[in-house]
């Protein structure tokens, strides 16, 4: 049943969709008229190195968030303890701190150890992205019925075995979805990296350099490459997650 009110709501929504899609469409499509620049960028060792740095660091940050965040999510899902609300707040708070402040805080806390090296980039990424993995892991473990874990134990499995053969596999879809979000958040980070680790140069910082030094058009080829890489990986991983989980995310 069509009606005016639904059309009105859809129109309001369409404004927002347009606002979000126009920048991507304009940037990518204008680059198509200058494919040479794109190809040149793809042959530029500086660009390729920076792309490697971006993908490498965001992937490592995501892996670290998995190694430490999944156990944390399990504890938050299964245990009750004093200060649990506080721990949960600590996990959530990084999303609200301005990225430049994140960089400064990290330097204050870990100083020379993270200045201008891979560790710094990864630390910055981990700080802003860990909450996605932790919260998804927590939700995933919460959705696993504890009874099933106990059944496995009555069949003779130790707690460790139950964790790896029952709890973890059943929570895996949710964890994987959270890891994708963490990865996306990590590779999108700029502000904190600018402060902590201007070098080694990541692609997102290189875009900024090109923009500052050579102007808007010069920064476009690498911007477009970054958009396409992010989109392809993000969309592919989400597809995989949907197929594996047999549901939608």
């Amino acid at each position: 049943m069509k009606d005016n009110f639904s059309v009105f709501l859809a129109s309001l929504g369409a404004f927002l969709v347009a606002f979000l899609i126009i920048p991507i469409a304009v940037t990518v499509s204008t680059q198509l008229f200058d494919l040479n620049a794109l190809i040149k960028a793809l042959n530029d060792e500086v660009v390729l190195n920076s792309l490697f740095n971006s993908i490498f660091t965001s992937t490592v940050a995501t892996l670290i968030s998995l190694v430490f965040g999944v156990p944390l999510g399990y504890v938050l899902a299964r245990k009750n303890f004093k200060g649990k609300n506080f721990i949960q707040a600590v996990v959530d708070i990084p999303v609200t701190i301005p990225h430049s402040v994140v960089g400064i805080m990290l330097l204050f806390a870990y100083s020379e150890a993270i200045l201008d090296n891979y560790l710094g980039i990864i630390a910055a990424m981990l700080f802003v992205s860990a909450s996605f993995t932790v919260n998804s892991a927590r939700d995933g473990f919460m959705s696993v019925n504890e009874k099933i874990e106990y059944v496995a134990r009555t069949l003779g499995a130790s707690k460790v075995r139950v964790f790896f053969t029952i709890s973890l596999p059943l929570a895996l879809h949710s964890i994987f979805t959270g890891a994708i979000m963490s990865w996306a958040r990590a590779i999108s980070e700029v502000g904190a990296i600018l402060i902590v680790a201007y070098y080694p140069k990541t692609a997102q910082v290189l875009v900024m350099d090109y923009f500052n030094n050579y102007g808007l058009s010069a920064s476009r080829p690498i911007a477009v490459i970054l958009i396409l890489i992010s989109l392809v990986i993000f969309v592919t991983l989400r597809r995989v997650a949907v197929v594996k989980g047999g549901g939608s995310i």
Partner: protein
Amino acid sequence: MLKVEDLSKSWKDFSLKRINFEIQKGEYFVILGPSGAGKTLLLEAIAGIFIPDSGRILLNGEDITEKPPEKREIAYIPQNYGLFDHMKVFDNIAYGLKVRKFAREEIRKQVEEIAKALDIKHLLDRKVKNLSAGERQRVAIARAIVISPQVILLDEPFSNLDVNLKNKLLREMKRWRRELNFTAIHVTHSFDEALSLGDKLGIMMNGKMDQVGEVKEVFSKPKTEDIARFLGYENILEGHAEGKILYSENIKIELPQEFYGRVRVMIPPQNILISKNMIFSSARNNFKAIVEEFEDLGALIKLKLRVNGIKLAAHLTKASFVDMGIKEDEEVYVSFKSTAIHVF
């Protein structure tokens, strides 16, 4: 073989109170009780999911009260079976064997053997997710039996099944029992499971195990009025008997034989005859009654009647209910034979 002694545990709003019972090897013990009686919690204590506040659980003489579940050799099948949804049927059944580090070949052999016994050999490669309720139940039983546990705990294994499937599986469960000869504690709120399967029966209400005994004994001699009511006995009256006459409240009831002193009787609701007019029949107990309300039992209508100060329930078919045009607050006549009365 398994002995539970004075087991107690308190939560905020519920407690298990001094549970005692013992079962022998090969016995099938059914625990019957209404929902909320604490049946699942009792199973969980036996399985080792929590440790009781006091009391002991002995298995072949050994105190296992504080042993972790994986060391008890007691398999637990929770309500809805607790299958591992991310594994195939084969891997579900093989789980306990893999834990025990059996050889690959041995595992395959044992899984196929039990699967054959339970008629699920054709399902071994299937995902658990796509199984029907009856198939899920069999997989759960196979997974428990294959590790040859000392005891199997079954929590309402036949709930959530439709009547026909339930009857079929009940029959098969009897066969499996004969063939595989396992020891089981089976918890249910359903009477026919107790009758079909139980060697021994425990009645559990409000966290207490009120009566334990042979099935027939428990049904024929319920210890308390609560148990009698739970077992479905309606029209339970107490009174003072003098020979063949029972004086209860304001009415006199003729008994089937002579009794003296306080007795409790039960009049089966379907043995109470309802008529619109006074009938003179061989039935010696005739009373005038008021219809207070009626209730649809599915197969029947239950009339709730008031006879002087006493409330009686009577069953009649929908057809005769409609034929007689019975309405609330109307007068009807009830009669029942003295031979229909159970005295206990």
